[in-house]
């Protein structure tokens, strides 16, 4: 039986003298670093910056929808607001969020490697990300773009005079950043595992990031092609999407969704990994059905490529291809259901504590279950006809992306914060923030399911007055949600100076990352670890701690 032995009292402890943060000094040492942990921090700052920019636009959109008349801003401005919200949040926040920050920081450590396989490409991919960000910011300064994040042709190619090309370039470059990250992860997982770290000893966070990387590498080039074709069509009028030149406007939809549907899984899969780590740690148990959870990530990645046309059920695709894509969509829902039950049953006979990351996990499970099941509405052909392109879709994907992905991201940030900074965040206020976020979220997005079935289309600046009550609720919720997101910004910054010293393993977790000092050394491990146990082996951990205590004693 496992006994968790408490480590020596650390109230008088100090941060390790030597770590990756103080290894080198000066701005240049950060800008030219090849250390995956420093690059992860660079990403974290930039991603947080873009998250709040995207959040600002979301706030403006919700504010406009407070009244049925489009009276806060011109229709044109409103269109630019939701376009920028979508582009910034998806390409500059959701896609890179967990892989580029938490993945970059922890994936090498979790498999016992000193760095990623290609440290300089890793830095390059951050620079590409920043270049993409600069293009998007430039677009903003120049006056914005109003294509919607989906860039639908021929609207984007022939009918808009806004800065489509600048934004498209940004997204094209961001795509390379994501391809490089994916390649780096795949090669690292294949080639850099420590001795004894077999595939089925990998932490589930590594599995899910691996699956997401495969999607990034295979899917992103198709988006790049679609974007280049849009640019060529705009500038020299090649006509692949233009029916008057024999082109097919539906072709763009196929190309775009071939990436953008798998992209949903690029966004959510790494989040699944975080949830597995956190659930295991705070229940002190192996993840129930480890193999099933690992393979369900792979299954999602594989099936994810065969469902894109469910975005086109109402576009006059043949009834029979609609049938096939609907069936495949139903199949992709199953692995997600498997994971939910596995997480729930991991808690069975555990020894559960309720630290902040765990609260976010509870939030995640609730919201993602709703998000996933409402996805079945949209995969169901006849129902999709009524619901697609309405606020029901908006509510559904915000439940999955914001309720799921962002909750997982916040769970991960709080979970690994002590390891990254060496200091604890304040527990009370962070629990409060988690609850505020959850309540704000439900209030914001639940009314949108209802208003969606009533028929309110998405991307509307003005709407019929009978939808107002639900929209007011939604905007009120967005305000609460905004507060929930601002709080961590302040208390995490506070903790950098005043937080309690964390010690190497504050959660008594099993992962390799918890067996090294916090914050880690630049080279992660002083000697290459030899792995003899499965991931989440708490009995091994207890024995190890006992040995260490005897050693100290």
């Amino acid at each position, binding site marked *: 039986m496992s006994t968790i032995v408490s480590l020596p009292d650390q109230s008088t402890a100090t941060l390790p003298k030597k770590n990756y943060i103080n290894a080198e000094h000066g701005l240049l040492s950060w800008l030219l670093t090849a250390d995956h942990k420093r690059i992860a921090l660079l990403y974290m700052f930039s991603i947080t910056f873009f998250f709040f920019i995207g959040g600002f636009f979301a706030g403006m959109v919700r504010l406009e929808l407070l009244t049925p008349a489009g009276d806060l801003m011109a229709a044109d401005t409103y269109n630019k607001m939701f376009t920028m919200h979508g582009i910034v949040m998806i390409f500059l926040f959701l896609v890179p969020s967990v892989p580029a920050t938490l993945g970059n920081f922890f994936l090498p450590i979790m498999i016992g490697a000193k760095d990623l396989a290609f440290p300089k490409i890793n830095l390059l991919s951050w620079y590409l990300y920043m270049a993409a960000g600069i293009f998007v910011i430039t677009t903003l300064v120049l006056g914005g773009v109003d294509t919607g994040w989906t860039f639908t042709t*021929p609207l984007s190619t022939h009918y808009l005079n806004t800065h489509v090309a600048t934004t498209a370039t940004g997204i094209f470059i961001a795509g390379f950043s994501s391809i490089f990250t994916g390649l780096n992860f795949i090669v690292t997982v294949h080639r850099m595992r420590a001795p004894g770290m077999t595939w089925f000893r990998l932490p589930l966070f590594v599995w899910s990031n691996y699956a997401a990387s495969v999607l990034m590498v295979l899917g992103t080039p198709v988006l790049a092609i679609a974007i280049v074709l849009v640019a060529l069509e705009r500038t020299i009028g090649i006509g692949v999407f233009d029916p008057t030149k024999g082109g097919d406007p539906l072709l763009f939809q196929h190309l775009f969704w071939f990436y953008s549907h798998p992209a949903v899984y690029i966004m959510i899969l790494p989040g699944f990994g975080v949830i597995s780590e956190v659930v295991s740690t705070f229940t002190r148990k192996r993840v129930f059905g480890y193999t099933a959870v690992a393979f369900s990530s792979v299954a999602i990645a594989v099936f994810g490529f065969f469902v894109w046309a469910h975005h086109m059920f109402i576009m006059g695709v043949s009834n029979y291809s609609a049938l096939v894509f609907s069936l495949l969509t139903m199949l992709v829902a199953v692995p997600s259901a498997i994971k939910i039950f596995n997480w*729930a049953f991991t*808690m069975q006979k555990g020894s559960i504590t309720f630290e902040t990351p765990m609260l976010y996990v509870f939030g995640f499970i609730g919201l993602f279950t709703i998000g996933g099941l409402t996805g079945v509405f949209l995969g*169901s052909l006849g*129902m999709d*006809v009524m619901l697609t392109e309405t606020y029901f879709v908006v509510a559904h994907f915000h439940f999955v992306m914001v309720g799921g992905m962002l909750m997982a991201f916040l769970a991960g940030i709080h979970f690994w914060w002590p390891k990254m900074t060496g200091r604890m965040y304040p527990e009370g206020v962070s629990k409060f923030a988690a609850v505020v976020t959850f309540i704000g979220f439900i209030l914001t997005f639940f009314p949108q399911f209802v208003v969606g079935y009533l028929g309110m*289309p998405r991307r509307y*600046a003005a709407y019929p007055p009978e939808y107002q009550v639900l929209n007011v609720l939604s905007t009120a919720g967005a305000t609460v949600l905004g507060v929930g997101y601002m709080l961590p910004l302040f208390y995490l910054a506070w903790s950098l100076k005043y937080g309690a010293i964390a010690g190497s393993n504050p959660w008594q977790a099993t992962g390799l990352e918890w067996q090294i000092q916090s914050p880690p050394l630049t080279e992660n491990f002083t000697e290459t670890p030899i792995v003899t146990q499965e991931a989440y082996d708490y009995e091994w951990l207890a024995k190890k701690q006992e040995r260490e205590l005897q050693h100290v004693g």
Partner: protein
Amino acid sequence: MQISPVLWQFLTKWLTSSALWPDQASTIAPWADALYIFLWLMTVVGVILVGALVLFFAIRYRKERHPEAVQIEGSTLLEATWTIIPLGIFLFVFVWGAWLYFRIYNPPADAMQVYVVGKQWMWKAEHPGGQHEINALHVPMGRPVQLTMISQDVFHSYSIPAFRVKREVIPGRYTTVWFNATKPGTYHLFCTQYCGTLHSGMVGEITVMDPADYQKWTEESTSGMSLAQNGERLFASLGCISCHSGNATASGPNLAGIYGSKIKMDDGTEQVATDGFLRDVILNPSQHVPYGYKPIMPTYQGQISEEGLIDLVEYIKSLKTNYRVQQTLDTSKSDDAAPITPAASQKVTQ
């Protein structure tokens, strides 16, 4: 799944009369609502199940009550259960949804035809009798109405929430949707595909009328010319009749009775003459050469508006016999008003 009819009636009546439910105004609406209610039941049961499991475990196995975790490997039986049961439910939803989809998009043969052209930013509806409406559509109650739709510029989407139908309106191809309205009244018409600046202004009203009222409306708002008549005039003015005269010696095929028939093409394939096919032939004739004819027809790309194409197709549809072509030929010869088009001049020089 069997629900007692009384309970079902109560449930749908109560739900559908509340402000949180859209009007039910077509034959499809009750079917869609039934699936929608089922899906919410599935969601609520799923969330309660997961929520109850998580809450139960969290309370039962919290550290104070259960200080030592028991390591469990997993369970193939449980894994199989929660793979197969959701799979079964999802497949059931798939079949139900597919059945509804085919019901929504397979129009009955006797449906009344209305054409819709979407443009930035208005909906233009054209009834066969020549009635034109902008951002409005009048339809009779209790009669299937089929809309044949096309966009003149970007993607739009024609959505009537009260009927639970929606279809994308696409540049370059006809899409169709049909409904059978069941309740007189005025309902929202939305464009649901983002189409530029005034996207949220591209809205309109669908008015469902008693058949008698609809009859009256048709008579009052007629422009005096049916779509087919407009098409006939265009057919003459564009010079189409000079080749498609129906004579045995004509250089183009006879169009009488061609709509809906199979045409043997020069490349050996067979094509069915649908609305979309006829439109495409007018715009891209060189890609659709019928067997036995020379590829001499010029393109009319950019010369005819989408409304004009609809008129032409409607005219071709109305040609059941050769009589109308002959008559058109005679009238156009007699008043000599038809301008000489490239098509006609080409014919002359040959």
